[in-house]
């Protein structure tokens, strides 16, 4: 199997689907002539032309509106937000329109669109460009929210997102974009492998990235990789963690984590940034509500600091969750009771 970078897997997913399906097109800032801000769409304009690779002004509301209308009319737009942070000016179009159109018109329309872009913390981009705001979208019925952690899922969930008949917010991990396959292979062999061809990954199926017996670590996106790193550290101490990647926040697969907890009786839930009212709160709550009698210790939540992202590298590195925080949380839950 090919070993790819996350960004190349995303690009491969879009390119292959655009070749397969005439109705798919990409619209966003600098996606065409500039070849993509991070060169994700390198060569796309040349291959697909101006009608399908649409450069836009800095008008996120217009970009999302274009996507909604085109989707209602039967096309399959992919709306790129240069960074997912820039979806905030278009928030009304996303949560008040894309998410609600099917329901409020009694099912007469569908809105098969993808809203995607790099997201998450770090790289010293500071407060306005360094956020993991996926929970903000996942709270709205009508949207699906997808958070690939691995190159394989970057491509596989992209294919599924484009083919889904609902509006899908694809939360891509900027921190994963450029990670070299070798670096991933060091964390876990095969972690950078992407199956050839038409291999959509279904929504709503969490992925057991690593099997274990002592504790269940539930994470998604970049934090799933951090959880694997933590598991490696723990293994040295003879602690075997099962690592579960949720993959999609809506639909949310809790059956997989709950089954794992039946076995391990301990759970750690990890989220990249703000804990308060974040996605990990929902997961932790459901584990305790539905797995109450399986738990031997309280669920531990590992999240970033509840602060806007600071710029200085030393402060920034304190502001989001990392593998050591996960290790510490695992040890707390094992020490628990």
């Amino acid at each position, binding site marked *: 199997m090919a070993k790819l970078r996350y960004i190349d897997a995303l690009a491969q997913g879009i390119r292959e689907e655009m070749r397969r399906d005439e109705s798919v097109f990409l619209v966003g800032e600098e996606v065409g002539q500039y070849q993509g801000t991070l060169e994700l769409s390198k060569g796309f304009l040349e291959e697909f032309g101006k009608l399908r690779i649409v450069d836009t002004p800095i008008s996120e509301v*217009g970009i999302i509106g274009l996507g909604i209308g085109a989707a209602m*009319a039967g096309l399959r737009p992919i709306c790129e937000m240069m960074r997912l942070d820039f979806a905030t000016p278009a928030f009304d179009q996303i949560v008040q329109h894309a998410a609600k159109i099917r329901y409020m018109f009694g099912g007469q329309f*569908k809105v098969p669109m993808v809203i995607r872009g790099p997201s998450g913390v770090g790289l010293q981009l500071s407060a306005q460009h360094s956020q993991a705001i996926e929970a903000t979208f996942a709270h709205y019925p009508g949207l699906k929210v997808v958070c690939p952690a691995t190159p394989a899922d970057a491509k596989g969930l992209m294919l599924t997102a484009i083919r889904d008949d609902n509006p899908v917010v694809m939360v891509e991990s900027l921190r994963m974009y450029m990670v070299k396959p070798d670096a991933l292979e060091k964390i876990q062999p095969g972690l950078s492998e992407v199956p050839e061809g038409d291999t959509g990954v279904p929504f709503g199926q969490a992925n057991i990235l690593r099997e274990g017996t002592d504790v269940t670590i539930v994470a998604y996106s970049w934090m799933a990789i951090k959880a694997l790193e933590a598991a490696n550290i723990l293994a040295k101490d003879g602690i075997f963690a099962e690592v579960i990647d949720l993959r999609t926040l809506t639909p949310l697969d809790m059956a997989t984590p709950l089954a794992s907890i039946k076995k391990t009786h301990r759970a750690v839930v990890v989220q990249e940034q703000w804990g308060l009212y974040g996605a990990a709160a929902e997961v932790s709550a459901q584990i305790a509500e539905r797995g109450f009698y399986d738990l031997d210790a309280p669920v531990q939540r590992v999240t970033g600091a509840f602060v806007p992202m600071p710029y200085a590298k030393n402060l920034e590195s304190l502001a989001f969750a990392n593998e050591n925080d996960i290790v510490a949380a695992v040890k707390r839950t094992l020490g628990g009771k």
Partner: protein
Amino acid sequence: MAKQANFDKETYLHFYEQMVHIREFEEECLRAFQRGNHGIGGYLHLYSGEEAIAVGIIGALELDKGDCFIGHYRDHAYALAAGSAPGPVMAEICGKYTGCSKGKGGSMHICDAEKGFYGGYGIVGGNVPIALGLAYAQKYRKQAAVSVCFFGDGSMNQGAFHETLNMCQLYKVPALFVLENNGYAMGTSIERSHANTDLTDRVSSYNMNRKKIDGQNIVTVHEEVKQIVADMKKNPAPFFLECDTYRFHGHGAADEAKQTVVYRTKAEIEEAKANRDPIAIAAELLLENGTLTDALIVKIHDEAVAAAKAAMQFSDDSPVPPAEELLKDVYI
């Protein structure tokens, strides 16, 4: 305007009937709202006084050939002008399962996919960016078709409007923006909300083809739009059309009483009803050239009243949505 001498009588007789039917349909809504026992709740925004716009413009579209339109929450007339059956529209307003949106949308969210009506929207300006997408799809498919977007003067103070018009002009998509300028956004007059009160002039910011017309004269509206749409289909490009109009009722059925206290005079409303009623103006033109007779006027009015009552009867006889509908249509 010269055109008015020789226009197609059958077309305009039909338009006249449509306007009267829309007027009576909404008067029936208002009575039902006030009686309060038909299922109408929430907001009810009436189009009374603006009928020539929806009828004259939608009447110029080839809905069977890919033309389509989208509107805001003052949307009953759009569906009726497109020929949607009055029963399901009334049933929607009353929250019935037989409603065009299964009773899930209500008065603000009427739609008819078959007729190319992409729905009424409740967020001011929110429907405008979607029109860009509808028109982009027509360009994408190389259709000789247009997408019409109806909106009010208040929408022009939403940022969404400005991002959209710029992009439409950049991409030369066939979007026809129809401004229903009725002078007020709720209780706020144009003068109190637009630094430049010439709303058509505001669009020079986008180099877009534009024109301001009398929205109360069905002949003006229709003949102008026929030409504009024909041109758009030949040379795809967006167009901004300001229709000068007036709203006879309150912003919503709820502020019917308050309006004359806080933002406009009874005299102003009466003056408009007397001199700017699109139905009366059409009647005069049609009587003039013999299309209408006094007897026919009475007959059409009675038919409209009967049709409105029949629509309400259809709604009254309809069931509310079954409980299992609650969880349907969130995802496909």
